[in-house]
C-alpha cells in the first residue's frame, strides 16, 4: 500500500536536490508539450510522461517539461517545442514516447537536433 508516510520520505530526499538545483542555476532548457484536445486525442499524454520520466531518470537538473494549449497545427500533433538558450526554437511533430527518448538523448543531452522529427521535415 502506498501511504502518505512515503511522501515524507520523498520530502527528505528531494529537498536537498531542489536546494542544489537552485544553487547551480544553470541556463535552463524548456520542453513544452501541446496538451489541448487535439494533442490529447493524438497521444500527447504518454509523450509528456515519457519526457518527464527521461528527464528524471537522467537527472537533467536544468531541464523543465511543461504543458501548453494548442500549438496550432492539429494534424501534426502531438507537437513538442524545445527552447534552449542560444538556440532557435525547435518544433517536433507527430511525437511518440519512443521519439521522446531520442530527442532527449540527441538534442537535450548531445545538442544535436533530431531533424527528421522537426516540423520542417514533416509538412
Amino acid at each position, binding site marked *: 500500500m502506498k501511504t502518505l508516510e512515503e511522501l515524507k520520505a520523498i520530502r527528505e530526499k*528531494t529537498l536537498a536536490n531542489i536546494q542544489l538545483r537552485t544553487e547551480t542555476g544553470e541556463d535552463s532548457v524548456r520542453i513544452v508539450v501541446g496538451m489541448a484536445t487535439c494533442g490529447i486525442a493524438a497521444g500527447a499524454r504518454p509523450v509528456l510522461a515519457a519526457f518527464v520520466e527521461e528527464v*528524471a531518470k537522467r537527472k537533467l537538473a536544468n531541464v523543465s517539461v*511543461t504543458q501548453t494549449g494548442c500549438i496550432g497545427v492539429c494534424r501534426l500533433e502531438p507537437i513538442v517545442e524545445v527552447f534552449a538558450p542560444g538556440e532557435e526554437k525547435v518544433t517536433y511533430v507527430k511525437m511518440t514516447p519512443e521519439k521522446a527518448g531520442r530527442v532527449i538523448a540527441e538534442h537535450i543531452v548531445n545538442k544535436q537536433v533530431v531533424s527528421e522529427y522537426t516540423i520542417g521535415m514533416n509538412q
Partner: protein
Amino acid sequence: MKDLSLHILDIAQNSVKAGAKLIDVTLLENADSLVITITDDGRGMSPEFLKTVTDPFVTTRTTRKVGLGLPLYRQAAELTGGSLDIASSPGSGTTVRAVFFTGHIDCPPLGDLPATVQTLVQGAPDIDFHYRHEKCGKASRLDTREMRGALGGVPLCEAEVLNWIYESLKESEETLL
C-alpha cells in the same frame, strides 16, 4: 478520443484554463451506468455563453477557430444513450456532469485514470485536485491537499511525487476491478 480518461483530462484542462484553485473529479459506477462529474471554482461562464458551448464552433481560444473538447465529450456520452449537463455561473465555477451507459456497445473504456491525474498535477502543480472513483461501495481516491501536508514545501511536480501519484492510484484502482 480513445477512452474516458483522455476526455477527463481534456475537460479538466478547461478548468485549469479557467483559473480554478480546486478541481474535483468524481466517477460513480453503478450496475449499468457511469457518472463523471468535474467541478471547478474557476471563472465560470455566462448563461448566454453556456447555451452555445457544446456547439463545436464556440471557443475563446485563439489558435484554432473551433473548440472541440466539450462537443466531443457530449457526443461520446450521447452515443451511449447518456447525456452531458453543464452548470456554471460567472465567478462561482463550473460543474460538468456526464452520464455514460456502460453496457452500450459505443461506451469507451475507462482508460488510464492514474495517468490522467498524474498529467493534471504535472501541468498545474499549484492547483489542488480531489479525485474519487467509486464502484460497488469501494473507492479509489487522491487529494493533493493531504499530499501537500506530508510534502512540506516540495512541489507536486517533482518526478518522485508524480510517480507516487501514479503508483498509488494504480494500486487503488486495481481494488475496484
